[in-house]
Each structure stands twice: as C-alpha cells, then as structure tokens.
C-alpha cells in the first residue's frame, strides 16, 4: 500500500511504507544520540562508557550516582514530556483543523498548573507527585471551558476564537495562580521551580506515578490515527464515510487531556512544542495521522531533549528553565504561521 503525500509544489507523490518505517527508525536513532548527549553534558562531563557502566554495573561512585539519580530521570522525563506534548498538539491541530493549536496557547497547561497549585494550597503538600490527578482534572476542565466558549464566539470554532479564548483563559489561570502563590508562601517555595517549566530535579517516583496515564494517553491516540485522518477532511465528509464523529472527537479529547495533564504534572507548563512538531512532521510525511502521531512522538522527544541540553549549556553554570528555550524558538514560528496560514 502506498500513501499519497502533498509535496512542496503541490503534486502528490507516492511514499512507500518501507520509506516511512525507515524514516521512523532513523529518527529513533537520532533520538538515541540525543539521549546520550543529554546524559554526558552538564556541569560534570561524563564519558559514554561510564554511563553504560552506571546502567549495567552500578558501583555507587559520584558519577554513577549523577547518572542514575539525576541525568537518567531528567532525560527520560524530557523525552516523555516532549513526545506527549507533540502528540497532543498534533491531535489538537487535527481535531480543530486549526494550524495554530498548541496545548499551552489554548490555556490547557495553565489550567493544569492552576489545579496543581490549588491542590497544594488546600491540602498542604509533601511532594508534587501526589497531584498528578489534579493536573489531569485541571486540563479536562479547561478543555471543556475552551470548547464551550470558543464555539459560542462569532463564527464558531475558528482559529482566532480558539486562540483568544485560550489566551484569556491563560491570563485568568495565571492570575489566580499568582494570587494563591502570594497568599501562601509555603506553596510558593514548593512550586516555583516547577511552574517555570523545567525537567530538572525530577525523580523516578514522579515518573512512575504519571507513567500509567501517559501510556493510556498514547494508546488511545495512536489507535485513533485513521479516524483523525478522516475527520481532518471535514466533519461532513467523515460523517458521510460512516464515522461517528462525536465519539471520535470525545475519545481524542480524552487522549489530549491525559497527555497534557501528565506532562504538566511532570515538567510544569512547557510551551510551543505541541505547535512546532506537528508542522515539521507534516512537512516531511504528509497528512496521514497514522504516521503523523508516532513521528510527532519521536520528533517531540528529540526537540525537548535538545532544548533541555541547550538550556543547560547556554548560560552555564546556571540553567535556564527549558520552557524559556521552547518559547524563544516556538513563538517566532507561531507568528510565521499566523502570517502565512490564517486567512482574513
């Protein structure tokens, strides 16, 4: 079977299965290289054979401890979060047929952050890991609000309505978050670092806590690839092809909520990964969501790993929150898209 793909000059080109599989394997290999780079670079340079030794034969030395307790969880979390956000962004763009959709721009991540801050404020906190459920809840509530308000705006669910409702929801959630942080100094100390959007200083307990949600999220969304491709042709077309569109949309939305909520619980709000990655992927492999979703996962993981390495090196020995790096790269891309893709 072959897949038709729009090329830059508009002529469809056949791209074979084997080529797509090869491409995916190649991206996975690049991901592995980035993972190694992420493990070696930092305040202490650690060689590759030491990394391997730390993973296979742990001997308790400082280097091995750094690898096992800091670099490994950090790199794994960056990969997972990048993959989750990229897949969520691809789904959002497919669902809303909106090239500007991104979990952060649409306010989902701020909603999740607000829910976590509220939970820490109300129930007191021993650690962030207890609150993954609240991040999911916050994402879900924000998604429902976003959908309702944007469809009430002029013209329905247009990119403009979604974007400005998202911006307003972000403002609202951010101001309430600030208010709570000011009211409770203890909450502030607990959460300030997390709020900046960073993958540093996370450990395996948090990762294992969130892992089930992410796995379910990936499973749900990957299973929907074919349906999303059809839906992307337009709701009417999808219906006439016999799709139960409401059911598909609801399931996909659930997948998005699971992915975004858990990645915010892991790393705080990280912007623009979900915007940029699907565009890159579509440019190379076209419009079939059965392939877009896995590619987006791998490319998202690569991008966030690279952004995290850059955040460690740019002003070394200090570190930047990785959210700053992604915003600096992603926001110009957003403006470019707004200029080229949005018709008046």
């Amino acid at each position, binding site marked *: 079977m072959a897949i038709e793909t729009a090329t830059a000059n508009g002529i469809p080109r056949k791209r074979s299965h084997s080529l797509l599989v090869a491409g995916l394997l190649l991206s996975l290999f690049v991901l592995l290289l980035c993972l190694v780079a992420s493990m070696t670079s930092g305040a202490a340079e650690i060689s590759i054979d030491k990394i391997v030794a730390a993973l296979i034969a742990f001997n308790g030395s400082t280097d091995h401890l750094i690898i096992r307790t800091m670099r490994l969880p950090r790199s794994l979390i960056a990969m997972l979060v990048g993959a989750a956000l990229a897949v969520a962004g691809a789904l959002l763009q497919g669902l809303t047929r909106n090239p500007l959709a991104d979990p952060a721009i649409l306010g989902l991540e701020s909603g999740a952050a607000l829910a976590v801050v509220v939970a820490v404020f109300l129930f007191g906190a021993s650690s962030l890991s207890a609150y993954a459920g609240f991040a999911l809840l916050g994402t879900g509530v924000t998604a429902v609000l976003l959908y309702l308000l944007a469809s009430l705006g002029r013209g329905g669910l247009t990119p403009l309505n979604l974007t400005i409702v998202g911006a307003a*929801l972000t403002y609202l959630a951010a101001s309430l978050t600030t*208010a709570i942080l000011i009211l409770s100094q203890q909450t502030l100390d607990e959460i300030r670092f997390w709020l900046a959007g960073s993958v540093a200083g996370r450990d395996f307990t948090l990762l294992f806590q969130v892992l089930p949600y992410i796995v379910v999220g990936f499973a749900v969304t990957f299973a929907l690839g074919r349906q999303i491709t059809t839906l992307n042709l337009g709701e009417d077309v999808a219906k006439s092809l016999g799709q139960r569109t409401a059911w598909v949309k609801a399931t996909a939305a659930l997948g998005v909520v699971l992915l975004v909520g858990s990645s915010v619980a892991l790393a705080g709000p990280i912007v623009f990964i979900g915007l940029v990655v699907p565009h890159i992927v579509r440019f190379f492999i076209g419009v079939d969501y059965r392939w877009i979703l896995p590619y987006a996962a791998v490319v998202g993981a690569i991008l966030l790993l690279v952004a995290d390495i850059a955040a460690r090196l740019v002003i070394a020995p200090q570190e930047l929150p990785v959210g*700053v790096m992604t915003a600096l790269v992603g926001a110009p891309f957003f403006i470019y898209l707004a200029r080229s893709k949005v018709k008046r």
Partner: protein
Amino acid sequence: MNKGWLVIRSRHFRVSFRLERRVPAVLLTLLLVTLAAMALNVGQGEYPISPLEVLKTILGLETDNPDYPFVVNTLRLPRTIVAYLAGVGLAISGTILQGVIRNPLADPSLIGINAGASLAAVTLIVLVPSVPLFALPLSAFGGALAVSVLIYLLAWDKGSSPIRLILVGVGLDAISRALTTLMVTFGEINSVSQALVWLAGSVYGRTWEHVWSLLPWLVVLVPLAFVLAKQLNALNLGDDVARSLGSQVEWQRGLLLVVSVALVGASVATAGTIAFVGLIAPHLGRQLVGPTHEGLIPVSALMGGLIVVLADWLGRVLFAPIELPCGVITAAVGAPYFLYLLVRNRKP
C-alpha cells in the same frame, strides 16, 4: 438634531467640541465616586483611618491623631495616586487602540505591548541595578514601542487585519515573557526581586518620586489624546471614509499609536503590568456615553483610574493582612469579562 449633543465653541480660537449631553454629568459622578474610592483606599490598612479623617488630613485640617499626616501623606497617598494615574494611562491607551484598529477586543496587555514594556524595564533593572527612577518609563516606552512596531510590520499588510494582528500580538507576548524570564534567571537576587514587582503589577510601596516620574507623561499625553479624539472618530469609520473626510490617515494613525504606546510604557514602568484595564474601561465608558471619542476618552480615563484604585483596595481587603497585587485582581476580573465580550460579540 442638535438635541443629544453639547457643543462647545470658542469665540477667539478656531476650536470646537461636540459632546454627548450626558458626558458632564457622567464625568462629575465618576469623579465623586473616584474621590470616595481614593479616600477609602487611603484609609485602608494595618492602621485604619476613617475616610472623613483622610480627607481632613489631606486638606491640612486639624485631626485627632498627630500620626495621621505621616501615614496618609507620606505612605498611602502617593500609592493611591500612582494607582489612579496608571489606570488613567492604561484606559486611554486601550481606548485609542480599540479605535485605531477598529477591534473592540484589543487590549495592550493581550497583544504583548505591556509585556514588551515590562521586558525593557526588567532588562534595565537587571543590567544596571543603580538605574535612576525616571529612566524606567523611558525604557518601558522603548520596549512598548518596539513591540508595536513589530506588530505593525508583521501584521499590518496594507490596511488592517485585526485577526492577524491579535495572533501576532499573542506570539510577541510569548517571546517577551520568555525573554523576561531569561533576564530574571540571569540577574542578581536583589535586582530580581525588584524586577518581580513589575511583573506582578503592584503599586506596593510607591512614593512621591514615582508620582513625579509618571505625572509629566500624563500631563503631556492626556491632552494630546483629547485633541486627537476627533481624528479617532474619523479613523474609526474605516480608512476610506476617513480619507474622504480629509484625514491624513497614516500620519494620524501613527501619532495616535505613539500616544497610546507611550501611555502604556509610562504606566507599566511605574505600576507594572496591570492587565485588562485598557479593555474594560473603554467598554464601560461606551455603555455610559456612547462611542464618540470626545466624550469617551475622558470618561474611560476616569473609569480606568477608578478601576485600578478599587482593584488595589480589593487586593488589600480580601485577604488582609496579605496583599494581592492589583494586577492580579484586574486580570481575574478582566479575563472573564473579555470572554463575555467575545461571546456577546457573535452576531454575524
């Protein structure tokens, strides 16, 4: 047809204004409410003073307590005045912006102009910790101007596309915020905590020095905005109509935008990023006196001042003794109001 209007002409100069007949009454009412709110605001605090005593103290009359003059005149009055002036500046700026780009949802904070101003101010504070106070409005103005020029260049495209303008603004807002975080991460602890005040949008601890650094900007820009109101009316009808009415469209739009941006810069430099005042005030003003800018600009100016003073008061009363920055209050109220406007605006 002259019924609902009040026309003011000068015999000696070639100047005339046409106001809605209800404008003077509305202005007077707003002024009285504002004075009451300011008295309330000054009286509020760890050391409560009744509004009547506040008025007496300000007017220099004899009061029961010899401490009052210090508490009122030195500690609390400048703070309230800064809140008021910043509100006036932001409200006029929002009114002009909504008129110029013909979009009732425009707000300087939403399209990144506030963020640009605070980025410039924070950068200056972090790089030059010993910076004098009067330089901050200048640099904030520079930041706001840079963002607006960028928006104009990236989104204008022969006349206006409000959709694209807002989207580009949202993107620039994100960039400015990221750079501000970068600056804050970069900086020394001392200057960072000073810079964080800007980001929260608070009038905490403002002194007369702040009042004097903000006031000159308003003294120049507010009358200018008022003089330009008539041009704003014409521009609001669309470029073609404005041109056929004899407006030099590009020049006037440019001048109006510079005034708007300068007002944001000065306000943000002194009181931080207080969001959504520039959105709410003109809308409430329009409800009161209609869309003619000669009346709308002064009314929404007073409204903006009132909003920020009230927000400051609320922020101190709600969870006393802990104080919420007034920017948090305006955003918490303004964002839902913005969504309400968006939904109400949906007729085809």
